[in-house]
């Protein structure tokens, strides 16, 4: 009853037709998946085209227009410097996705490599890598990020570094676990017996089977990275003014919930919206890709 896992997935290099079919199947699996796809699509569009579509320059200060409620000119109202909130929120999408992309790229590369090495080589190397991973995991993330920000100066780039340091261990663990369980699978053993080189085994058998899990984790982590970035900005350790990062906007807006509700609400909604979108995507992907969750 144990099917080679590799057959359950599309092989790398599959044709476009197969890919589209896969996507359609994903969307058709559940209404939530459709919702996820649409929401993520919107966020990505906002990130890519937002600044072009923005009606005003996001950092343009017009003190006389400060804290104006939503109107036809300012759809989201203005903030405490008279800057158009809609433009800032749209620019914020780009910033958040940029940060998430960089942080997760670093995390995936570093984490996956270390995890794979640990899983494949085993022994003392495995132990060493795992202890280092444990060390980073045991570190209260907030303190680590704050310390890095304090040392290198608070800035978005420092945030990126700090968050990459916090997130990579998860990928190391994930990949190592998968590699460990795959190592003993029959098709891998069979390949070894057949004389295949390690690099081929990695390429043909391991990567396609680990990839889905990494992808799922990635989509879930986008939400966490964005939330963490905004938390750090909230604490004054991240984006510097006038950068329209959502968390930084929420910090400024905090005291205005009563007198200018639009100011904290729209960035907050954008944040929640984006996190929801990516979480739904991750959930849907997991339901779809994880063979253990397959319908029988």
């Amino acid at each position, binding site marked *: 009853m144990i099917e080679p896992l590799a057959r359950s997935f599309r092989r790398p290099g599959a044709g476009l037709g197969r890919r589209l079919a896969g996507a359609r199947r994903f969307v058709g699996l559940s209404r939530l998946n459709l919702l996820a796809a649409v929401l993520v699509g919107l966020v990505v569009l906002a990130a890519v085209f937002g600044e072009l579509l923005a009606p005003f320059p996001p950092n343009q200060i017009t003190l006389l227009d400060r804290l104006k409620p939503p109107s036809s000119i300012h759809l989201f109202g203005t903030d405490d410097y008279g800057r158009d909130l809609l433009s800032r929120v749209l620019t914020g999408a780009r910033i958040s996705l940029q940060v998430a992309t960089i942080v997760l790229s670093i995390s995936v590369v570093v984490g996956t490599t270390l995890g794979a090495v640990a899983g494949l080589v085993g022994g003392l190397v495995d132990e060493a890598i795992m202890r280092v991973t444990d060390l980073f995991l045991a570190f209260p993330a907030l*303190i680590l990020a704050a310390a890095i920000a304090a040392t290198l100066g608070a800035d978005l780039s420092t945030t990126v570094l700090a968050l990459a340091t916090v997130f990579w261990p998860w990928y190391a663990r994930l990949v190592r676990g998968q590699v460990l369980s795959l190592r003993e699978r029959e098709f891998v053993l069979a390949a070894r017996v057949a004389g295949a080189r390690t690099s081929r085994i990695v390429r043909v058998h391991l990567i396609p089977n680990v990839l889905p899990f990494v992808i799922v984790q990635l989509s879930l982590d986008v939400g966490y990275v964005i939330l963490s970035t905004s938390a750090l900005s909230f604490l004054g350790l991240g984006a510097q003014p006038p950068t329209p990062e959502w968390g930084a906007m929420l910090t400024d807006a905090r005291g205005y919930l009563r007198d200018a509700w639009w100011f*904290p609400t729209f960035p907050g909604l954008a944040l929640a919206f984006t996190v929801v979108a990516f979480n*739904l995507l991750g959930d849907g992907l997991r339901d779809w890709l994880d063979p253990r969750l397959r319908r029988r």
Partner: protein
Amino acid sequence: MRRLLARRLIFVVFVLWGVTLITFFLARVAPGDPARLIAGAHANAAAIANVRALYGLDQSLVVQYGHYMGDLLRGDLGTSFVTRRPVAADIGAFLPATAELSLFALLAGSSAGIALGVFAALRRGSRSDTAARLIAVASLSMPAFWLAMLLQLVVYSRLGWLPFGGRLDTGMAPPPQVTGFMTIDSLLAGQPETFVASVRHLVLPVFTLAMAEVGLMARIVRTSMLEVIGEDYIRTAEAKGLARRRVVVRHALRNALLPAVTVLGLEAALLAGGVFLVETIFAWPGIGRYAYDAIRASDYNAIMGVTVVGAVIYVAINLVVDIAYLYLDPRIRYS
């Protein structure tokens, strides 16, 4: 099994030591001069030098580290520059407050989350499943401070149902400290009024923190339930004719809880970020605020203390989780 435990313990020590080393040097390398801060803005050079000497900040980093580790092993975490009290005393005062908050939030959120997750898993693919998943995701995506401020505005200011924050009513004397939990201590001391007040003060902050818990637990439980439901031994039990519910409760849930329990351990660390915001808005005298103030003031000893204690807790929880794993999963136990 004992060898396994022994190895885990050794690595625990290694991890903790690594944490102290990194934090120590990271904190001191960061710009900011606590001696200047303590001495005050108008102090002259002599005063600053005196303060620096008072706190041992004029010695080399390595020497300072040596002193610190020596004290640490004796249980002395140094003195906080900000509160001027021993850090151990500070943590002893603030940690139980956060622990009380986090534990209740964890309990409330987890129960609701597990229920939601089971519900969703059993109805996979149905509209109820979709709804439950949406609720789960929405609850963990909401910015905590936003919810906190909204609740405060509405439930306190407008409706007057619950207090604004703090642990007890203004001027109310706390019960004699046994655990540091207002709820438990007031019960132990036989003070029903204090107990009621402490519960009322807990509602809003716990609700805010629990929201994220619900979503996380629901998702994890649902996923692991689905995995387990597909497993052979479940199908065997079903084939034998056992009622679905019994199957779920007896077999699936127990095994599904394993990864959930693992995550619970990891949650402790993640909670730290959200807790600070909630503590600030609800004026809760907890360790989140203490840690943040320490970072802002370059209060080295406090930063170290919080980090070390945090790491110890994290590691302890994981150790407990590992042990629980060993007992819950028969496959591992007998391997």
